């Protein structure tokens, strides 16, 4: 009884979930909601929306790698599958395929196809682990790239599809900077909290336990492979939704979108941000998008990949946990520094 009384309700004015949220979370939420008010439409669309949607795709990798211990290179491929489905089943301006389904069928269907493909990739990949899984998913991603580049009947080969537009809802064209930013924000926030929730669910906990000790979980009667494949399915839902946003953002999709360079970009984003917490991919995406847009002004467009590669190398070499790890080390160093100074004062005084 005392335990309950010790924490009396603070009154109905502030809902419980809001009171529990970390101040930093609230600040970030307010900032993200108000961001378009002081950002130009370039910053809203090219930086804000782009970072949010790339972060969403990288979030699916973070979920697999961070909670499942499975590093998949095929997340952009899954996103690309959704993007291609949107172009193929919906409408596009390339004159190939474009079955013209309404968007409210095309979009969920595309995401579902992507998730099923992700589960299939998972079914193949979970037969192995560690570097083997990296190699297999990389091989799948590369094979998909070469396949769509060669296939002209369905995927329109090298040219891909252009003129893929999001719908107009209630008179609002979704690709305008402001609506598109909020759409990306809503999707990103939804999946961010969904991943946080899933990580604490029974499934999430058993997935993490499988990551730590698959043999013990198997002995306890858990179906290890099924858990991993289901994780791939969920990650496919996230990556697929990100892929729909990606194809709307670019207005087109081509083999270049799902090229190995792009596949590696997603990994760079997730690793640079940090794969321990769901916020990591979004941090990485913001940095990546900023560098991608402004490194050109600083060093010219030519050697952009060298900068990206060196940044990536520096992060991998010096902070294996990415920006998140850097931040945590900084915090830990501060704490020990202050406690040391307190101890020091106590010693001399």
């Amino acid at each position: 009884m005392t335990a309950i009384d010790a924490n009396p309700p603070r009154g109905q004015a502030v809902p419980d979930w809001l009171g529990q949220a970390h101040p930093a979370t609230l600040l970030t939420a307010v900032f993200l909601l108000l961001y378009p008010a002081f950002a130009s439409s370039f910053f809203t669309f090219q930086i804000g929306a782009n970072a949010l949607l790339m972060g969403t795709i990288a979030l699916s990798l973070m979920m697999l790698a961070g909670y499942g211990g499975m590093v998949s290179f095929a997340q952009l491929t899954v996103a690309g599958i959704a993007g291609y489905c949107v172009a193929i089943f919906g409408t596009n301006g390339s004159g190939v395929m474009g079955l013209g389904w309404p968007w409210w069928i095309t979009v969920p269907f595309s995401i579902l196809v992507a998730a099923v493909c992700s589960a299939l990739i998972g079914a193949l990949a979970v037969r192995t682990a560690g570097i083997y899984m990296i190699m297999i998913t990389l091989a799948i991603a590369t094979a998909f790239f070469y396949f769509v580049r060669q296939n002209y009947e369905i995927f329109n080969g090298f040219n891909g599809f252009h003129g893929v537009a999001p719908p107009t809802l209630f008179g609002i064209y979704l690709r305008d900077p402001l609506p598109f930013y909020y759409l990306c924000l809503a999707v990103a926030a939804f999946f961010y909290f969904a991943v946080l929730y899933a990580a604490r669910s029974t499934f999430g906990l058993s997935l993490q336990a499988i990551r730590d000790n698959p043999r013990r979980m198997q002995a306890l009667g858990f179906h290890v492979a099924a858990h991993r494949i289901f994780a791939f399915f969920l990650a496919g839902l996230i990556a697929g939704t990100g892929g729909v946003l990606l194809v709307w953002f670019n207005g087109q999709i081509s083999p270049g979108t799902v090229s190995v360079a792009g596949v590696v970009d997603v990994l760079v984003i997730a690793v640079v941000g940090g794969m321990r917490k769901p916020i990591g991919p979004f941090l990485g995406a913001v940095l990546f998008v900023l560098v991608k847009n402004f490194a050109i002004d600083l060093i010219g467009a030519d050697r952009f990949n060298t900068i990206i590669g060196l940044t990536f190398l520096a992060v991998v070499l010096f902070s294996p946990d990415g920006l998140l790890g850097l931040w945590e080390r900084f915090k830990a160093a501060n704490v020990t520094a202050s406690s040391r100074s307190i101890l020091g004062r106590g010693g001399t005084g």
Partner: protein
Amino acid sequence: MKHPVWTAVWIALAALAAWLVFAVWPDWLVDLIGAKRIFVTTILNGITLAGLYFLVASGFTLVFGLMRNVNLAHGSLYLFGGYVGLSVQMATGNWLLAVAAGFLTAAAAGALMQVLVFRRMEGDDLRQTLVTIGISIVAADLMLAAWGGNTYQFSIPAVLDGAVTTPLVSSVRSNGDEVMIKYPLYRLVVLAVALAIGVGLWLLLNKTRIGMMIRAGVDDRAMLSATGVNVHVIFAIVFAIGAGLAGLAGVVGGSALSIAPGEDIRYLLASLVVVIVGGMGSITGAAIGALLIGLAEQIGLAYFPTYAVVITFVIMVVVLAVRPQGIMGRAA
């Protein structure tokens, strides 16, 4: 004979293959799958491409077999060796010098990577993978800066250039003359180089003292170290050989096909798939995998061009479904 049924099936398949290659095709078969000339050329292309893939993948699998390092910059080493060889050939006009330069510079780059990177993160697979990806991104961009985005081709020495007439009959003319199939000599040279290197690697691993150490290192690194062998030197040598093979393949392959940005990824994929199919760390596996993938790619390209990549992929899926460790791989 342990499996009489399977043996019979294999013998029948081999006989069918031999008949397809050596016999003059009847008209109904030509109607069914096209001219014999195309078929035989496709098979030869597949086998010679397999030779090239083996050169690249054997280095990849050697490094993996001993050190458990997945070197995702292996394709970059291929391209780097090719470009350096190209520059050497442009400067000296000597193709053999180009081959040597490709091997040596890639070997040096590999040894440098082993000393500077891999030695610092032994046993940390994921970080090694990530670092090699970073290296390959930077390397691809720097090579683009140094050699530009053009497609280059080596000029092959005159001795190796031209076509040879193979002893294979493609068809019989109405006057009774037999038409023989011609095939580029250089591609056969590639195959011969691959065979020589394959045999050389096998001898090195199985018949020499250093090969004994390498094999011991695969099984128990700590024990090998305890017997007084300097494991670091062994690792650096193996890495140099593996990387050098990729560089050599860059020149040899660049002469048969071409050298251009993006080839690094193509050959990385080829080595990945070959090694996944054949089994990691096995030279024999690399040979079998290379043969399967090379043939599948060329047959696919000739008969169903759109789905060529898919065939490669299907082979990978089937092998993984039956044997997750690859055809010649040992169960983990």
